[in-house]
């Protein structure tokens, strides 16, 4: 054990002698924790053996032990596929749009809510804007199809305002898809994402605002110089986490909202994996695609964390 080689070596070694005895005396805590440890090892770490199939010409009948190893052939095949390249592009594009739209909108809303003095009104706005977070993606996509259809509300509004003459086919043209996903995600999550920022804002010492007022700062200056610096560390932590999730643009919304017409723009890596793995039963290729995604995600997370540390900001790990 590495703990043994600590500064206070002797004492710890003495304690370590009784490791199993202590463990035995803590049998009740073990009863409470070991079942879930085994559960997580099976359901979260167990599937990692499945990564072997990424290097195999996996045949369900033969299983993992009987299938032939093909080296990196699956990965090579993936990168010759235009649809896989497209799906990497789409994933990153939609992630970045989601990240920028999501962060900006929720910080903005949190600031506006923070400035509301009437508690009842503030609570009402919160109750209403948290609501879409609890709707399933199936429902949200159904609503979006009503709203954005050629005779839906958005087109009616645009035509009444005279911005367009003909209805826009938001759902039928690839060039709109990324932005549509961005808008729908903001609609669904903006309220929910304010929770963390608002709780960070309530932790700001009120004296700072008072001092700023005494110095003659107006509302805008107080927001810029007290509120925003106050939520800085929350922002950084969330940013690192989100960068770690850049490869996860989600698949529910793309899978449900997308169609063969817009596939070049809607297919994300996850949808690609689903299509090749489940529908076409090409397990090896699909696992390789998923593995590629996971590895890039870990690299992104670790490097974002390192950059943040280098810059003297908070870190996640």
């Amino acid at each position, binding site marked *: 054990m590495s703990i043994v080689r600590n500064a206070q070596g002797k004492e710890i070694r003495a304690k370590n002698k009784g490791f199993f005895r202590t463990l035995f005396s803590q049998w009740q805590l073990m009863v409470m924790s070991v079942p879930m440890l085994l559960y997580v090892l099976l359901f979260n770490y167990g599937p990692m053996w499945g990564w072997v199939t990424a290097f195999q010409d996996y045949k369900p009948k033969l299983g993992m032990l009987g299938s032939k190893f093909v080296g990196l052939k699956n990965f090579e095949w993936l990168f010759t596929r235009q649809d896989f390249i497209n799906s990497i592009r789409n994933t990153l594009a939609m992630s970045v749009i989601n990240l920028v739209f999501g962060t900006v909108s929720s910080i903005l809303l949190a600031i506006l809510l923070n400035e509301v003095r009437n508690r009842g009104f503030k609570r009402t706005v919160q109750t209403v804007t948290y609501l879409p977070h609890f709707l399933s993606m199936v429902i949200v996509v159904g*609503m979006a199809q009503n709203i954005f259809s050629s005779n839906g509300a958005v087109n009616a509004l645009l035509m009444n305002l005279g911005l367009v003459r003909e209805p826009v086919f938001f759902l039928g043209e690839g060039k709109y898809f990324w932005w549509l996903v961005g808008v729908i995600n903001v609609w669904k999550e903006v309220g929910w994402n304010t929770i963390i920022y608002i709780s960070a804002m309530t932790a700001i010492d009120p004296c700072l605002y008072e001092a700023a007022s005494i110095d003659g700062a107006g509302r805008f200056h107080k927001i810029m110089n007290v509120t925003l610096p106050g939520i800085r560390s929350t922002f950084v932590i969330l940013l690192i986490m989100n960068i770690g999730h850049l490869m996860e643009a989600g698949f529910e919304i793309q899978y449900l909202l997308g169609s063969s017409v817009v596939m070049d723009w809607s297919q994300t890596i996850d949808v690609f994996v689903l299509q090749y793995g*489940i529908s076409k039963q090409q397990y090896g290729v699909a696992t390789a695609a998923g593995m590629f995604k996971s590895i890039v995600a870990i690299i992104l997370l670790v490097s974002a964390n390192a950059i943040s540390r280098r810059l003297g900001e908070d870190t996640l790990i």
Partner: protein
Amino acid sequence: MTDMTKMSQGIARVNKKNKIGHDRVFPVVNTLILILLMIVTLYPVINTVAYSFNDGTDALRGNIGLWPRVFSLKAYESILSDNAVYQAAWISASKTVITTLLNLFWTSMLAFALSRREYVLRKFITTVMVLTMYVNAGLIPNYLLISRTLSLSKSYWVYIIPTMFSCFNMIVIRTYIGGLPDALVESARIDGAGDIRVFWQIIFPLCMPVLATVALFVAVGSWNSWFDTHLYNAGKKNLHSLQYLLKMKLATTQASANAAKSSAEALASTTQTTPVTIRCAITVISTVPILIVYPFLQKYFVTGMALGSVKG
């Protein structure tokens, strides 16, 4: 309130009087923006309700706003006369209740064990748990494990067993327990109570607020899930969940909407697709349970989210 803050508020008030324009306009503009946001949030929801109460053929003309144009209960009648919906609702409701209870049981118990500083396996188990939030084997390996290795597909258990535990929720509860006074556990231990008893009789009852949060998260997740049915139980009609039923209706309407860009073509193709009104009515039916529960739990989940974000 101390004299100091009163004084500074007085000063602030004087300041306010000096800059009348800016400080009076802002609250009004702010209120208007927030009201507009509420309208944008609620419009699609109310619009869906309006569609669900509209006549099916008339709804194809679109442009229904916040109120049905030709009122009709046909959509609800046709749904409620279909046994598949009752079966799906039963599947959805039962899996939600069972998953939630199992989650609360396992998650809170583990959270308690990992909140005890003297527990020798604490660090090891915590690391194993937290890593799962960042490393994921991916869809296909998970699918192979659940459907082939464990043969859970085409069964009700696939809704329960793989979703029995969540690391994020465990950390939320552990943070909450960490905020309770240590003396509670210590004094009970001195009185001779074992850890299991300390947990069930002292800590568990005190955790109700955070458990309400976690229950809401889990219940909503389970109620809203459709992908598990899609992957594992698509072939078993009696195991379809409500959301999956909705997803299938969505797919059929969408296929026609994309094929037919003009409304005339859409009209022609309605015979073989699900009318939008029926889809909206199922949406309403499957959303009502969430709408009923959620406002009561709001104060809990806000604290819960704040707790979870303290330290991942």
